[in-house]
């Protein structure tokens, strides 16, 4: 994070372990250790005011789990989530409800995240009702404003529409309006444009970026698509098997990736340029199971630059540039 920005969200050593349930006979007769899926295993980062941070990685790396913990849809197993200075990791009841008012999530699929039987007005009004804004006129005003800032103009044309009467891009804008109607400080967008067509993606992305700046939000943008992350995120974190292996300014990560995994990830992104020839570095195998994690560095079984101590010791964090950190033995 840039030093001049105030951190809205600070995450320290966040962990989420899901217990593996055994069958009844196994649990009766086997005395072995309980096993866990270590979906998120010690993640730390922060997001400043007006900043968009990207979280990238392959499926199963823990990026969506991280997001769901941050908006407290999951309880963390361990770690701190400081939101505007306060640790909200174990908030319950009315405290939790208060936090949720300022933390919102935009989901991947606007064809599924909107209730098909609700009009746009009802969809956006619902959070206001839940958070006890009783004055109907006030609610109407806020719904109108939210539609306006989400680019659905004039708002009156959209208020009484149902989701099926709108295109994918318009639906995702309704989801954005719903997320912003309570004037949150922290917004998580989980692959918000992956279901949209190329020609309308740019509009939704530009909107998200502009709103983050204008409203001073802390935004977390989750995607596996690094070419999209490049257009919207100030900083980017690369996740592999539950850990952030590299984090830094987005252009730095894309142009000078340090971690061997980041390098391979970027090398694999196809580019719309026929003159570009990619190197033939290929990665062995597939992402291992987060149940029996490899010893030492989690990436070592697939890493092309592996050395002996990668197999033994987990790597520590090294600084490799301005605000640019990497978790790899090669940079000790």
């Amino acid at each position, binding site marked *: 994070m840039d030093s001049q920005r105030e951190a809205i969200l600070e995450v320290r050593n966040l962990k989420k372990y899901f217990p593996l349930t055994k069958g009844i006979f196994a649990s009766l007769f086997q005395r072995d250790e309980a096993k866990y899926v270590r979906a998120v295993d010690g993640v730390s980062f922060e997001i400043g005011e007006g900043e968009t941070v990207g979280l990238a990685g392959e499926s199963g790396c823990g990026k969506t789990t991280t997001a769901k913990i941050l908006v407290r849809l999951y309880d963390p197993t361990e770690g701190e989530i400081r939101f505007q200075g306060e640790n909200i990791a174990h908030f319950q009841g009315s405290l939790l409800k208060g936090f949720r008012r300022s933390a919102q999530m935009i989901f991947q699929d606007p064809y599924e995240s909107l209730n098909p039987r609700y009009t746009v007005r009802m969809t956006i009004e619902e959070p206001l009702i839940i958070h006890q804004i009783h004055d109907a006129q006030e609610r109407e005003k806020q719904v109108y404003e939210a539609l306006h800032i989400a680019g659905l103009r004039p708002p009156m044309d959209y208020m009484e529409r149902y989701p099926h009467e709108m295109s994918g891009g*318009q639906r995702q804008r309704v989801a954005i309006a719903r997320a912003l109607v309570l004037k949150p400080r922290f917004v998580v967008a989980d692959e918000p444009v992956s279901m949209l067509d190329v020609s309308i993606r740019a509009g939704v992305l530009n909107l998200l970026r502009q709103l983050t700046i204008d409203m001073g939000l802390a935004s977390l943008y989750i995607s596996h698509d690094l070419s999209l992350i490049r257009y919207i995120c100030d900083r980017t974190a690369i996740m592999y098997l539950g850990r952030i292996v590299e984090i830094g300014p987005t252009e730095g990560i894309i142009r000078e990736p340090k971690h061997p995994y980041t390098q391979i990830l970027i090398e*694999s992104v*196809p580019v719309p340029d026929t003159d570009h020839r*990619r190197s033939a570095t290929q990665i062995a195998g597939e992402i291992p199971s987060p149940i029996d994690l490899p010893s030492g560095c989690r990436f070592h079984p697939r890493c092309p630059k592996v050395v002996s101590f990668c197999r033994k010791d987990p790597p520590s964090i090294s600084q490799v540039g301005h605000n640019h950190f990497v978790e790899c033995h090669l940079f000790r």
Partner: protein
Amino acid sequence: MALLDVQNLRTFFRIQAGIVRAVDGISFSLEAGENLGLVGESGCGKTTTAKSILRLLPSNGFIPEGRIFFKGVDLIPLSKESMRKVRWRDISMISQSAMNALDPVYKVGDQIVEAIRTHETISRSKALTRVEELFSLVGIEHRRMFDYPHQFSGGMRQRAIIAMSLALNPSLILADEPTTALDVIVQDQILRRICELQQKFNASMILITHDISVVAETCHRAAVMYAGKITEMGKISAILKVPYHPYTMGLKNAFPSILGEKFDLISIPGFPASLTDPPQGCRFHPRCPFSVDICRKNEPPFIQIDPDHFAACHRAKEADELRKYAAMKETWGNGDKAS
């Protein structure tokens, strides 16, 4: 003679509200060993084109016009039985949800054996040897032949489907978004593998995708589709560098790249044309910043720019000028119109 020659193909669907003109008069051809990318957004008719070639349309779909010559034989009038023989042996398909196309209660190897033995009279053991060869080609260990689909990861299932599509040595492969559901690293591995194999067997491929960059890396030529029509066709390098159709110019603006200088993404205003009641004249005119009177009235002809580069645009001759404006954000009037 071209391997595949599609002439003025129309494929319509009957629905309650009328007739959906999903594919509305497209023509293209494909030589042996050539890769063609069919690019466009959802609902532009690219998958319908593939299904028409294989004659795998749902019961409300029909082909009112057009010819599909494969090795000189028109496929459209073929009987169901003769068409069944063409499928898989001559033309195979890797479909969009191929990962879920495997039957969960049969072992993966057995499913491929069954596919082979449906088309060829060979013994089970010979078929199994063939599956073994195919598995090493696509990079799956032999011992995994007797696993069930759920024991495979998404990438492995996709590889198994590729193995199956190559089992009978087809001369044409229709790959419909073969890697859309996969992660970039796996996508990269699979695309490389498909291309290697397709070159090795000298098969042709039609790659259907919304992702121009995937086409840039795997295909020689591309056809850009919009609302059931081909708007631009030619070498993929030419289409990306010097597009002649405003829709292609718009797509290029909207498409992010991880290479080179970062530029602002510009979206195309409005939304895709209705296929039940398509706009008069050029179908792209309601979203086109360069549309003039004639675009609203007459359908644009296919204008030849180079021996192998065509664009269906009334203003294709002015493209050099239009391209300059197309690169500017103001041209597309972004900001107010929500798409």
